[in-house]
């Protein structure tokens, strides 16, 4: 099996990973409590979704 000829430096490894970052999640304002929440999901702060309370937050 072919093997690496040279060790890669930390800089080289980190440069390779420069583009690997995950984008931050999209956030919108909760219409009920104004906290930032993910769209299309129950608000984790107040438990509201589509104008009614759905869970205990």
């Amino acid at each position, binding site marked *: 099996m072919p093997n690496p000829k040279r060790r890669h430096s930390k800089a080289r490894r980190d440069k390779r990973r420069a583009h690997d970052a995950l984008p931050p999640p999209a956030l919108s304002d909760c219409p009920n409590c104004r906290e930032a929440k993910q769209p*299309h*999901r*129950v608000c*984790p702060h107040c*438990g509201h979704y589509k104008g009614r*309370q*759905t*869970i*205990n937050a």
Partner: protein
Amino acid sequence: MMHNRAGRKLRRTTSHRMAMFSNQLDSLMTHERIQTTLTKAKELRPLAEKLITAAKNDGVSARRKVSQWIPDRTTVKKVFENIAPRFVDRPGGYTRILRLGARKGDAAEAAILEFVDYRFEPKEKGPRKESLSDRARRASGGRVETVRKDKPEPEEGGDEGAAERKAAPRQPKPGRGDKAAKGTKTAPKKGPSRTGPSKRGA
């Protein structure tokens, strides 16, 4: 495109998967709302809807069909006598899925699967219920200690006892031969105890 995504295996064998759905259907019909992962909810939803549609026409055939998925007889009864009648006028779409976001632990997208007529009642914030650890803390006067039956209670002021404790600070279950030695050196279950069990309920 989101085509052809149904029929996920969920990393289970067929029987494992069907057993899980069976349990989840039972829970859904009993509690009217269940929390699971988004993927499982999406797989479960058509199964649940088909059972309810089948239950709209009561009869031996329909009862057997529903019983194939729902192991519990009282739950089957509830599906026919409570759930299906509620949806007679609704042509499908008896359930909804609420997304809850990534859960702690494995970051899986959590979801709630519930009947569309589910009425959520917010929990009132009452005084906190006393947990088991609270009780232990109260009983031991502020200190939490594991209650061990096989632990001999320390003798008062006895040098022998102290020496023995030093030699073996944390003793596992007394093995064979241990018992005789212990009986002579320390007096178990006598004197005011400093540890938990006897003070319990005081």
